[in-house]
């Protein structure tokens, strides 16, 4: 049984800088984030918030200046070389790319991409497990032999997700939203449904990273709002959405296009913007 009190992913006071020399900038200024077993956490951040940097750091793709990243209580932020590869092969953290076109090798049949992690780990029975994974995400196992360019966008998206359940043990996962190639709302929601189903009982914790609170609010248990390298607000999704405290969160929620006409008016948004500018100055 997973211990509900010990988080699967715990990020503490994380500071990360990117760039070299004079172009070096601190992107994350001491971020705290926790994902527990059975939980879906939404990390919401717009351009320049540092959400991609945070995701990449959790995955060991950036070095940290300060703070810790722990997966199942084990510090992973200092791992390098062989230790990092061994940690990745163990599959404790899985990553689902938002944009399946770019995360699948165009010259490789889908099945090879889906089974890549197993191949790297030299596990037996790859073909059957790839077929199982494809069935799990609602794809015909016969598609394993097709190239990404030979199937529909929705099928590619599902294949990209199938990379994850092919690994048996998968405690924490992250989705990265790619804005420039935003999928239509319908494919996006079916993807979200699929990921929610993959909670895998209550063993897996998931971190959804998106620029758009509106598109992930419905499937997340908690959200953390990232703004200019700080988590400005975090809490249960219902609470954050219905009673946001930070002006940025209020602006974000008030700007989201909705079908119930509940967004903020222009004057209210302008006031929030002014408040944010005032905050930044102080």
């Amino acid at each position, binding site marked *: 049984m997973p211990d509900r009190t010990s988080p699967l992913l715990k990020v503490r006071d994380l500071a990360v800088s990117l760039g070299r020399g004079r172009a070096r900038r601190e992107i994350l200024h001491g971020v705290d984030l926790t994902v527990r077993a059975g939980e879906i956490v939404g990390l919401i951040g*717009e351009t320049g918030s540092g959400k991609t940097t945070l995701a990449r750091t959790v995955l060991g793709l950036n070095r940290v200046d300060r703070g810790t990243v722990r997966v199942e209580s084990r510090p992973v932020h200092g791992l390098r070389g062989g230790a990092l590869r061994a940690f990745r092969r163990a599959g404790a953290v899985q990553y689902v790319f938002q944009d399946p076109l770019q995360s699948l090798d165009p010259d490789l049949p889908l099945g090879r991409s889906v089974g890549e992690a197993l191949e790297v780990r030299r596990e037996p029975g790859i073909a059957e497990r790839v077929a199982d994974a494809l069935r799990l995400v609602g794809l015909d196992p016969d598609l394993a032999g097709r190239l990404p360019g030979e199937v529909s966008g929705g099928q590619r998206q599902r294949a990209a997700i199938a990379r994850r359940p092919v690994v048996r043990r998968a405690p924490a996962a992250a989705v990265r939203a790619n*804005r420039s190639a*935003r999928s239509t*709302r319908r494919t996006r929601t079916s993807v979200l449904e699929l990921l929610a189903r993959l909670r895998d009982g209550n063993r897996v914790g998931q971190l959804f990273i998106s620029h*758009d*609170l509106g*598109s992930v609010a419905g*499937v997340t248990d908690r959200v953390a709002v990232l703004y200019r390298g700080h988590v400005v607000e975090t809490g249960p999704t219902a609470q954050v959405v219905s009673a946001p405290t930070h002006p940025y969160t209020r602006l974000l929620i008030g700007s989201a296009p909705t079908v*119930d006409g509940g967004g903020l008016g222009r004057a209210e*948004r302008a006031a929030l913007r002014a408040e944010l500018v005032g905050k930044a100055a102080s």
Partner: protein
Amino acid sequence: MPEPLLEIEDLSVTAGDRTLVHAVDATVARGGSLGIVGESGSGKSLTCRSVLGILPPGLATGPRTAIRFDGIDLTALAPRDWPSIRGDRIGAVFQDPGSYLTPSMTVGRQLGEVLRVRGGLGRREARDRAVDLFAATGLPEPARVYGQYPFELSGGMLQRALIAIAICREPDLLIADEATTALDVTVQAEVLDLLADLRERHGLALVLVSHDLAVVAQVCDEVIVMRDGEVLERGTAAEVLRAPRHAYTRSLVEAHARYGIERFRSHA
């Protein structure tokens, strides 16, 4: 019914023997607004491109199609007459603003060039007018933006600059095809405000195309919902949102209610 500015009758778009858009009818009144909602492949962009006369090679409008803009039959327009319509009377903005600007020229000069070549303004006049237009589209420090290169501007600022270029000839109609899709939500809200503003202040008619019903409903009075090249539903924005008749439109509204932030507001 006010005087129609744009009338699309029985629009079909074919590629060889395949029909990509079937029998689309739509009308935009002078100063009015029409929202077109649909996924990629629904035919919403091809509809816009037909109006602009910029269908991709190999695609053509059908024989019974009629597109009338202010009394002019656009389907019969000769190539040399297009410049007096496109740009001058119908402006357009698209999804990826960066790809519509020359990277090696300041955005101010790019707008100034249109004003000088198409508008016949002098160098000084063109500059002043460009700065005014940048200010009108809500760009902060318009005089500074005038001298900046596209790579120095954020996505939202680029889209504002392109809107400035699209409206600089004071067109009667602006077509915005997924123009806010690549923008952050908070920036999208501002650009949608800007479009609504332009309608109010300049009497500009607007065709707004989006995959998101909520975006369209926020700005437009009339909405049509497209899928697989056909119009499934049409009505006022309020009607379509409140009482969608087609199952597909219902699924769009429900997706919002289930996954969006609306879910929490209705329970709050």
